[in-house]
């Protein structure tokens, strides 16, 4: 580890803390549906969208209707993308002349992008035409992100409203978030990326005669416009197979920093927005503090492990940290930091290959996803996932002191706790169940590239990433098979919507409750004790279930590495 590395990590955290309030305040404006300066330009677009779609933005929806509209919209989007990908061969914008995708790959990709997972069973450059990247994938990057933030708004309203029967209007939320938050930021980010060297063209392959006289084909395309929303919307689906490790996606150390910041910025802002929505910004800071503790702990482990390197290579007299799968321009600190950021949020972009990390260095990204990506988390999904844990934390605290638990003015009762447990149980059930299945079936065992415990880690990581809607991978796994495409597609769908529906039910149930003012007997949810309790609950309830799996994979791998055992 180096001083420069730690300056980068702590500087990164400091920038985010500074951005929390301004971004949070902007989000709060959209949450309230207030006018912004951007309305002068984009207001007519917003009204036009409502008019053509027959939407009445002021008409409030109960949680069931909100959920129904959200689900139908996602099904429609997914069907649209499935069609674009299948018909790729006959559509324009295809300079490489690529064929349409196979049914199972098109299904997997459509689910993957609709659920904000952006798991890539395909290798960008050899599979997707420019039109598919733009029309099939970029729209999901925006709208799955907007959907996540909209859902967080609905839950915030559940906490904030008193004796209300509605949680907002889905269409108004999604449209405003897209037009007034994501689109303008993406325009600015795209220009920055292009200026830094990320291509933005409709051309395809350029033929190069290298200095040694060999032939090289370089693929260009509309990369920058997709890169911007890929990070900001915590999507993570790369234009190229190598994702943000590819020099065209992420050419410099500065673009790398901006990419990491854009993964976290909306999630950080949402913690402040939550505090503001429930009338006490300290509630938001308490959540952000718990997230920051878990984040820095993760970064420390991964950075230390990667900097220490692989003793098996040290025996061959190779110097220093683990550079397999990493780019020279980023080095170890920026690669370790990126891996923790991308898995703490549900982004899943990678600037280094997690599969080639040291066992414990790679375990942290895996564990981050298994915790439910609640450390900042995906846009929207992070904060609503975190609030599910907060509900359980006040419940546990209530059990200890023997009082009905309360959180930000709402009594937490049996219904909310049951629904929260239901949502949280989806993760271990699906991840461990499907990993176990794939570890015994022939089709499952055909996947891993690496042998021994690391091969098991590849399978565990795949299902963790899919159910957690992350999208990063231990990419050695050959996943473009009917078995993995199908199973991972189902896993992504369940991991997204089987969490969302109980969460929206909680929002509806909370909105209907009366306000319970804080009293002397209330458990305070702003101080250090609360932050500690949150961290403990997340680690114990979220993490403990996965320990046996981690012992079989990364921990066994680590012990083998120390002994110098090869597989």
């Amino acid at each position, binding site marked *: 580890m180096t001083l420069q590395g730690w300056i980068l990590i702590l500087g990164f955290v400091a920038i985010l803390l500074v951005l929390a309030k301004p971004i949070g305040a902007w989000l709060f404006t959209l949450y309230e549906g207030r006018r912004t300066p951007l309305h002068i330009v984009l207001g007519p677009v917003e009204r036009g969208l409502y008019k053509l779609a027959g939407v009445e933005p002021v008409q409030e929806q109960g949680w069931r209707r909100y959920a129904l509209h959200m689900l139908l919209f996602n099904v429609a989007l997914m069907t649209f993308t499935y069609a674009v990908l299948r018909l790729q061969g006959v559509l324009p914008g295809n300079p490489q002349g690529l064929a349409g995708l196979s049914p199972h790959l098109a299904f997997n990709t459509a689910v993957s992008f609709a659920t904000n997972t952006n798991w890539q069973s395909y290798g960008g450059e050899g599979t997707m035409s420019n039109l598919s990247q733009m029309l099939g994938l970029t729209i999901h990057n925006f709208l799955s992100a907007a959907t996540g933030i909209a859902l967080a708004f609905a839950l915030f309203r559940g906490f904030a409203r008193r004796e209300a029967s509605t949680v907002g209007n889905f269409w108004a939320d999604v449209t405003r978030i897209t037009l007034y938050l994501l689109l303008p930021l993406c325009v600015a980010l795209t220009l920055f990326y292009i200026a830094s060297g990320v291509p933005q063209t409709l051309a395809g392959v350029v033929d190069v*005669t290298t200095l040694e006289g060999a032939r090289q084909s370089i693929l260009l395309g509309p990369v920058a416009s997709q890169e911007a929303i890929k990070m900001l919307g915590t999507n993570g689906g790369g234009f190229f197979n190598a994702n943000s490790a590819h020099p065209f996606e992420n050419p410099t150390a500065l673009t790398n920093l901006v990419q990491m910041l854009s993964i976290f910025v909306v999630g950080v802002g949402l913690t402040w927005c939550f505090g503001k929505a429930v009338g006490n910004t300290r509630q938001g800071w308490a959540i952000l503090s718990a997230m920051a503790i878990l984040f820095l702990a993760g970064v420390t482990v991964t950075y230390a492990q990667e900097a220490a390197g692989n003793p098996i290579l040290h025996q061959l007299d190779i110097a220093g940290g683990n550079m397999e799968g990493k780019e020279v321009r980023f080095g170890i600190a920026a690669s370790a930091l990126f891996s923790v950021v991308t898995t703490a949020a549900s982004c899943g972009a990678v600037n280094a290959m997690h599969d080639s990390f040291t066992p414990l260095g790679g375990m942290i990204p895996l564990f981050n996803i298994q915790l439910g990506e609640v450390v900042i988390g995906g846009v929207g999904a992070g904060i609503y996932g975190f609030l599910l844990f907060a509900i359980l934390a006040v419940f546990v605290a209530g059990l200890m002191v023997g009082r009905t638990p309360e959180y930000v003015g709402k009594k937490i009762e049996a219904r909310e706790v049951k629904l929260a447990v239901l949502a949280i149980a989806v993760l271990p059930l699906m991840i461990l169940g499907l990993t176990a299945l794939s570890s015994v079936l022939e089709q499952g065992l055909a996947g891993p590239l690496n042998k021994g415990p690391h091969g098991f880690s590849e399978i565990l990581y795949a299902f963790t990433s899919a159910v957690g809607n992350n999208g990063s991978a231990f990419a050695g796994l050959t996943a473009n098979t009917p078995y993995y495409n199908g199973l991972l597609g189902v896993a992504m769908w369940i991991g997204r919507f089987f969490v969302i529906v109980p969460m929206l039910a909680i929002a509806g149930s909370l909105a209907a409750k009366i306000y319970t003012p804080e009293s002397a007997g209330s458990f305070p949810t702003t101080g250090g004790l609360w932050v500690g309790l949150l961290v403990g609950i997340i680690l114990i309830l979220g993490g403990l279930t996965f320990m046996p799996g981690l012992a079989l994979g990364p921990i066994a791998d680590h012990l083998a590495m120390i002994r110098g055992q090869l597989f």
Partner: protein
Amino acid sequence: MGKDFSSALRPAIVMTILFAALLGLAYPLAMTGIGQVLFPVQANGSLVRDGNGTVIGSTIVGQAFTSNRYFQTRPSAAGKGYDGLASSGSNLGPTARALVDRVKPDVETRRGEGVTGAVPADLVTASGSGLDPDLSPAAALAQAPRIARVRGLPVERVRALVAAQTKGSLLGKPHVNVLALNRALDAAGSGAADDRAR
């Protein structure tokens, strides 16, 4: 619920089409137009041409250098090496026998070239993209004696070229762009004007 369902169907379909037009076509096409006007070089891949106008590479993307006359690039898992249509890391785990089997001969090759002490890690490991354009200064300097010998240049001259091409910043690790370095090397070897080196 039946009425709810049909009333939700219209916005779901219409919004899909409208947003597809806005976000899937208007946004990327507008950015392409603006990017092509404001940053024509970068938007088209930062391509490098030789005196005849032939494209010889990109300043951003790495290309394979395997000859003894040049600074050699890192091992690459992109296709057969530096394949611009198949970016990829090796994805080999730290305990993979295949990793050791790949690294060992590379280390021995470097030893044969006279590299002493610990071998710089990036020189014998594959990058994440398989298209890494850079080397660490240590990995470049380790190759300086070989290049000096093959080209008949003083080794200090070669080291000075590495130092001149090394870029570092507060954010990133110091690194050398291998294409730029090798062009500078060619220019130094033939005594051509400095502008060819750029």
